[in-house]
């Protein structure tokens, strides 16, 4: 019975996707963690997005194109085992007009270890500043689950499954909207501090009102820690 509301939502999303903009692309990312002392860490992330297909086509140059690059830094302080508070900054170059976007980030994350499961929660707020645009405020919650594909925990040279689900509340010029993201990927744990992942990231943007956007991305990620 629990599956019925979920199925209804899924069917509504699929039914409406005929009126939405659909895009498909690839999003590689490199994420590195630097430890500073016992409690502080800096995470830097470099992420690019290439659109391989879009319908309806809203651009003027080409249907498949490089879309944007993000460079993000988040400084975190450990406030307990598997609990962190952080603040950061993101700069994005948008290829369409060569403009830059700036974002300030605040986050709290906590992780829980179970017998054969690792669960992480991330609560984030961010503010986006763009030329000739009103400031955009977002409130985000993401849950991530890691399940080893062999044994009770992910050891070096073992594969794992990762699933993320994120909900974003958006406020811009007094108007609210929502975005939902769902990611499923398979990772390989090269060592305790080094992982590579590949998966699919599905995003529904502008859920409230008209102009819904569906985005399906192939994700490739490399995570390293020093």
């Amino acid at each position, binding site marked *: 019975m629990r599956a019925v509301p979920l199925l209804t939502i899924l069917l509504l999303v699929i039914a409406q996707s005929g009126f939405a903009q659909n895009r498909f692309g690839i999003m590689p990312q490199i*994420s590195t*963690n630097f430890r500073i002392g*016992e409690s502080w860490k800096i*995470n830097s*992330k470099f992420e690019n997005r290439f659109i391989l297909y879009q319908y309806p086509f809203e651009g003027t140059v080409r249907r498949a194109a490089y879309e944007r690059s993000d460079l993000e830094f*988040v400084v975190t302080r*450990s406030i*307990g*085992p*598997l609990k*962190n508070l952080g603040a950061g900054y993101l700069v994005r170059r948008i290829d369409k007009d060569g403009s830059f976007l700036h974002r300030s980030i605040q986050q709290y*994350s906590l*992780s829980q270890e179970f*017998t054969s499961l*690792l669960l*992480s929660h*991330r609560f984030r707020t961010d503010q986006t500043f763009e030329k000739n645009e009103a400031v955009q405020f977002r409130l985000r919650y993401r849950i*991530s689950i*890691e399940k080893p594909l*062999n*044994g*009770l*925990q*992910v*050891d*070096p040279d*073992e594969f794992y499954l*990762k699933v993320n689900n994120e909900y974003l509340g958006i406020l811009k010029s007094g108007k609210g909207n929502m975005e939902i993201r769902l990611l499923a990927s398979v*990772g390989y744990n090269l060592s*305790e*501090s080094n*992982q590579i*992942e590949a998966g699919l990231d599905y995003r529904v943007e502008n859920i409230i009102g008209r102009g819904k956007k569906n985005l399906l991305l192939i994700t490739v*990620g490399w*995570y*390293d*820690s020093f």
Partner: protein
Amino acid sequence: MLLITCNEIFNKPWVMKHRLLLIILYLIVNVVHAQNKFERESRMRSSEVIAKARTYVENLFPKSKKIKWYWEENLQGVSIEAKINENKKTYSIKFDTLGALHDVELTQKFLELAIDVQQNITNYFQNQYDRYKIRKIQIQWIGDPDVLRSLIKKEETNKKYTTRYEIEFSGRKNKDLESYESLFDDGGKHMETKQIITRNLNHLIY
């Protein structure tokens, strides 16, 4: 020649001169390593498990549909472990590779321990840490397979066996908050503590 024998290394003048220093360094590295918890396990099919161990567990839990088997490597060696969830408890039954029973572990709540054990463990944590939080408790039984069978079946036994308590917790000491695993004897007296090394969770947060 790339191959150098041990004798050639030990006979080098620098090594001869600093032999004592090298031995001390080697021991320090080994002691530091041994104080951290290291485990690596992988799933096994029940058909791959030695019959002696499989029969012991299947006879104890005939109604349990899910007996999970693991091949475990740690600093002490290699073992085979069965995990069974029954009545909201998790049983871990550990054997050596020949199927000889090593120990049985059973998850417990703190209030299920004997009052004096609770008191001794609480005293230890309060004396050693500024703040602490218990995450997991397992009672560990070591002894004859027939005795451990009786204990799992909650039957009375007069025969000797060893009881220990394995506790995973987070503790704050000198402003450092870390995860640990401690072992206590049957009276709740502290035996040893290992620091648990947490994996990098960068890939789950970002």
